[in-house]
């Protein structure tokens, strides 16, 4: 296979762009392993070094009808994300009264230590349960925008769109990016006798234990939740949609402003204030940044053969060739559409850095489609991702 590269120049009578279409694998291979005589550096067909990401830009807050919005361009891949907040009254949640009374234990414990309460820095055990159980974050990614020829507009979401939506949802849940406290709309009942009476009746109906009634007067209650509809439109797709989509989600959530909302007793509904000065931004936990990689193998057959773990002999062979300085596989950062079509193995690493110490934290690591990347290489990829984290942070802070 390595002989494919030197044989290229004499036979090349086509312009490079056509050769790239006819023989994509050989074309990329020839770029990555140029003949030693040509003295050219190993470089990808798109002119990037193997660990180089595409130029990224971001812009936030340009869409009028959203609470927060962002446009992120990673090379030619463009993702537009809009966050819309809507209200979910607790009266509408079928299981609310049950789950609420069971979680009142936690709340009571918190109330016993009032000094801790205003800081909200403590780990709230209810956080994920509320966001996850009540589906307060609703990300949906759409590829049927004409972003690439393969996706038919109007058809139900493709497998790729579905898996990307779920990846984003899982990442939102596992990073606990959005605080549940930001999404709660509280109501502090005034301590009136009448109110107490009403509440007492309510607790009787629900058959809750008697001790709950004692504290009821000073207990704040959740009247509604904000539900964040996070819609991502991939306007242009040229490889690596996940990084762009996640960056857009992150930028849009950073931009999101929720109006001040309160329970209006007279109207029995949640009412918001439209004053910008009273609205507040979401306080996100950290800044997880996704970096994707793919592995390009010199063996053209690697694309379609079943993934087989190499036996000892093959392993030795690979090691030997590596000693001789013949590189058989390349890990390409931020693959474009052309490279994605030629590779099987994918790695996606989401990292964050702790605020005080600057230590890199791996939030998510996903690898599939092959066996080329091992522990040593993953470690190097985490370092690259950490570097990328700095770049993305800089871009997001500027917009």
């Amino acid at each position, binding site marked *: 296979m390595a002989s494919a590269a030197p044989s290229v120049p004499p036979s090349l009578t086509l312009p*490079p*762009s056509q050769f790239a279409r006819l023989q994509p694998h050989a074309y990329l291979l020839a770029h990555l392993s140029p003949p030693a005589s040509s003295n050219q550096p190993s470089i990808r*067909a*798109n*002119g990037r070094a193997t660990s180089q990401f595409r130029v990224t830009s971001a812009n936030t807050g*340009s*869409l*009028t*009808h959203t609470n927060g*919005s962002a446009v992120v361009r990673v090379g*030619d891949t*463009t993702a*537009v994300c*809009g966050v*819309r907040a*809507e209200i*979910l009254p607790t009266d*509408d*949640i*079928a299981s609310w009264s049950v789950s609420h009374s069971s979680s009142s234990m936690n709340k009571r414990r918190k109330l016993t230590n009032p000094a801790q309460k205003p800081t909200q820095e403590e780990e709230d055990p209810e956080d994920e349960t509320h966001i996850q159980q*009540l*589906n*307060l974050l*609703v*990300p*949906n990614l*759409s590829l*049927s*925008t*004409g*972003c*690439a*020829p393969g996706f038919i*507009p*109007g058809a*139900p*979401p493709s497998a790729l769109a*579905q898996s990307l939506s*779920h990846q984003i*949802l899982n990442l939102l849940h596992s990073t606990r990016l959005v605080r549940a406290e930001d999404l709660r709309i509280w109501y502090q009942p005034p301590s009136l006798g009448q109110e107490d009476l009403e509440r007492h009746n309510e607790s009787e109906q629900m058959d809750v234990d008697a001790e709950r009634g004692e504290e009821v007067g000073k207990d704040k209650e959740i009247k509604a939740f904000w*539900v964040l*509809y996070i*819609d991502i*439109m991939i*306007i*242009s*797709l040229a490889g690596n949609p996940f990084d762009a989509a996640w960056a857009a989600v992150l930028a849009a959530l950073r931009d999101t*402003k929720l*109006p001040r909302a309160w329970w209006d007793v007279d*109207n029995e*509904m*949640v*009412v*918001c*204030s*439209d*004053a*910008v000065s009273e*609205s507040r931004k979401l306080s996100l936990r950290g800044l997880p940044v996704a970096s994707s990689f793919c592995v390009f193998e010199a063996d053209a057959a690697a694309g379609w053969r079943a993934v087989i773990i190499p036996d000892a002999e093959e392993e030795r062979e690979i090691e030997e060739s590596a000693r001789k300085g013949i590189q058989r596989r390349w890990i390409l950062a931020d693959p474009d*559409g052309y490279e994605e079509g030629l590779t099987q193995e994918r790695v996606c690493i989401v990292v964050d850095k702790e605020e005080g110490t600057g230590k890199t934290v791996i939030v998510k690591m996903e690898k599939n489609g092959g066996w080329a990347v091992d522990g040593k290489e993953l470690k190097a990829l985490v370092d690259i991702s950490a570097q990328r984290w700095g770049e993305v942070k800089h871009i997001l802070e500027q917009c």
Partner: protein
Amino acid sequence: MTDRRRINGPPSGTRPAVFASSLKSASSISTARPRRQRQPDELRKIFLKTGLIPSASGSAYLEFEPSASLAAARSSPQSLIPPSSALKLACTVHGPKPLPRSASFSPNIVLTTHVKYAPFAARQRKGHIRDASERDLGVHLETALRGVIVAERWPKSGLDITITILEAEDDRWWGDAPDSHDAPWGMMNVLAGCITAASAAIADARIDCLDLVAGGVAAIVSDETPDGEPSTPKLMLDTDPAEHKSILSACVVAYMPSRDEITELWLKGDHSKSSLGTTDQNLSHESLIDGAVNAARGAHTVLAEAVKESAERFAGLPTGGSTV
């Protein structure tokens, strides 16, 4: 019915936020209605750029200039309720490409148009599945474009035109009661934008056309005088529905200037003499259509510039685009 291929929100559904200011009496907010700062025949500026989506054979992005009230609200935000909105849409063209094997023979190019609002495009959240108004827009767009493309040059081929609306025009001012304007007037502006953007994208895809078709909107509106009395109806070009108390009728055309031909005409509303209360010749059917044509002429100048830019980029490719 839940959609199992998408992530659904809470099963009980959610409610859009209700702002306290909109609950107050109507008199206190009517002062806040955005006012048209432009002359009756002055159009909004249009931003139109081609070739933003490299994987498509042709693409265009169109944006209307925000109205004065929206621009003011953006620069110094006071209220979370936007006074009006400005159209933003992206259009892609895929093709000409072979029809699927199962399709029957067609001597002409088969045009498919698809218009979809993003869920966050309008004041009310839109669903993921196309609704009637979106399908309607798609049909209108198809008629507008079918008269322009030289269809017999590509037998047995298909052409897909997809438009994603990132931000739509308002149908009425948010402070008005939902039924005070009967028709979705914003749709007409959206259609005019779709026609202009699709025309640019088709030219960007190097598909032979008779001419560049441009969309334009004109409307007969009756505004409120400062005393709250309805004023005499007036003809205005490129109306922003949020800026007017009531739109009596509106017209959108797809117009080819060099052939002086209209490929699509959509007229809506009632402007009979009895409803206008005047026999002014300037408010007739013809003048309304002429107004829309004039608006289209204005859009055509922008369109021609954008297509020229696209052609220059295309011509520049062989010399400057060598990547190896």
